[in-house]
């Protein structure tokens, strides 16, 4: 069964304190891995798509990486405005998207 697990569930950082979020997946034939950001009361907003192991994507303070079993979302020198829930999703063998439960990130000034 295709599955996505995100850890930690919640992460509190001080402004400027770099860290990483993890997305582990089990899928028969990964077709794509997606990262989304979700602010309270809003819908998810697309960040990145990764397709193959070794691939990396960057956007401002965020960098996503992919291995054969997991993806990391690295946050470098975060700011309070980076506070949000970050969702990971994989496209599996049937083409459907499977979402993880998310990691809630809080960045304190």
């Amino acid at each position, binding site marked *: 069964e295709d599955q*996505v697990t995100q850890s930690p569930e919640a992460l509190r950082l001080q402004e400027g304190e770099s860290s990483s979020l993890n997305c582990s997946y089990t899928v028969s034939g990964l*077709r*794509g891995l*997606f990262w989304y950001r979700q602010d309270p*009361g*809003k*819908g*998810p*907003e*697309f960040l990145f*798509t990764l*397709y193959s192991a070794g691939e990396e994507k960057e956007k401002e303070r965020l960098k996503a990486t992919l291995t054969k079993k997991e993806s990391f979302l690295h946050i470098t020198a975060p700011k309070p405005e980076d506070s949000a829930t970050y*969702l990971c*999703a994989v*496209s599996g063998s049937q*083409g*459907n*998207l*499977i*979402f*993880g*439960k*998310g990691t809630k990130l809080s960045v304190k000034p």
Partner: protein
Amino acid sequence: DAGITQSPRHKVTETGTPVTLRCHQTENHRYMYWYRQDPGHGLRLIHYSYGVKDTDKGEVSDGYSVSRSKTEDFLLTLESATSSQTSVYFCAISRRQGENEKLFFGSGTQLSVL
């Protein structure tokens, strides 16, 4: 922001009543989706549409029906609402389906079934 409007934004209803949620897009995207989001679960697909009058079931379709009579509108109906359908419902759109296509989401509808 992608042109997606969900209505209503909030709704409180009673068990056993029918409820219809609306999603309207101005992007002329072919694919439209309804998801629900609950604490302790990832987003789960209810139904999706790949064209006018073309729809299919998702992971959690029991108790829900959909209709798409125009490209821009996708309706989700709870035929007889139950407390287990209390959730936040998100509409999403994409130009095409599949691994290469990102989704654009609406702002959600908070539904409470009492």
